[in-house]
């Protein structure tokens, strides 16, 4: 059997798009960033981003607390903190729903790392900032609206 074809079939069985492409010889291994989920980060809407993250129908949870401003001072640097009080949190993804590519970051936690991530994100316009948490094999979500204005008296 054609080795290349075998690779393509093997790769398609369950690996991500990137792995398949590498196996098919379409992407040289040196070009590949191990584990960077291009499909998810290139997704242009929340639904596609979630699908590429392998998330479907996350449950709304009040145990996820999003600390983010009501009105962003500057959409280029919006401080966002996500705390997940759900036991066994293994990952937190942050999504700015109306950004051109909504997925902003996906954080995988291991060892004794707590369900907490603090970062600063860019927001193009007022939208929900959504957190998607994986814990114990299940997915949960919460969101908070952050308003972004075109302001600027600043000289």
């Amino acid at each position, binding site marked *: 059997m054609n080795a290349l074809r075998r690779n393509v079939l093997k790769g398609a069985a369950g690996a991500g798009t990137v792995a398949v492409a590498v196996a098919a010889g379409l992407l040289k291994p*040196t070009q590949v960033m191990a584990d960077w989920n291009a499909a998810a980060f290139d997704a242009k809407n929340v639904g596609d981003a979630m699908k590429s993250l392998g998330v479907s129908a996350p449950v709304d949870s009040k145990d996820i607390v999003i600390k983010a401003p009501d009105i962003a001072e500057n959409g*280029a640097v919006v401080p966002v903190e996500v705390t997940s009080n759900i036991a066994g949190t293994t990952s937190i993804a942050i999504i700015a729903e109306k950004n051109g590519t909504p997925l902003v970051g996906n954080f995988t936690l*291991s060892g004794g790392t707590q369900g*907490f*991530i*603090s*970062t600063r994100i860019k927001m193009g316009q007022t939208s929900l900032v959504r957190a998607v948490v994986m814990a114990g094999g299940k997915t949960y979500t919460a969101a908070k609206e952050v308003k972004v204005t075109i302001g600027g008296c600043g000289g």
Partner: protein
Amino acid sequence: MAEPMRIRATMAGDVADVKVLMNHPMETGQRKDAKTGQLVPALFIQEVTATINGATVLSANLGSGISKNPYLGFKVKGPKVGDKVVVNWVDSKGDKNTAEAAIS
């Protein structure tokens, strides 16, 4: 980007509070250069990994929607004062940077 990363790691009770400031333009590929009018190509940190005493505690995928000069804060239960925190990043061009700090 060769500018050094800054790491601050302190114990708060039995939890290590780790704060990292990376230096990187995090270009989305949609910004126009003020002088040339051309689009500045996308260039951003894609992966960040953090270890404490060699064990991975955080493995992050970032997109260009993370702000310029990325900031990351996370908390780890269990380490002790003196344990070594190492943070690595790789960007979309393959550039790398690493830094370490002892938990104080």
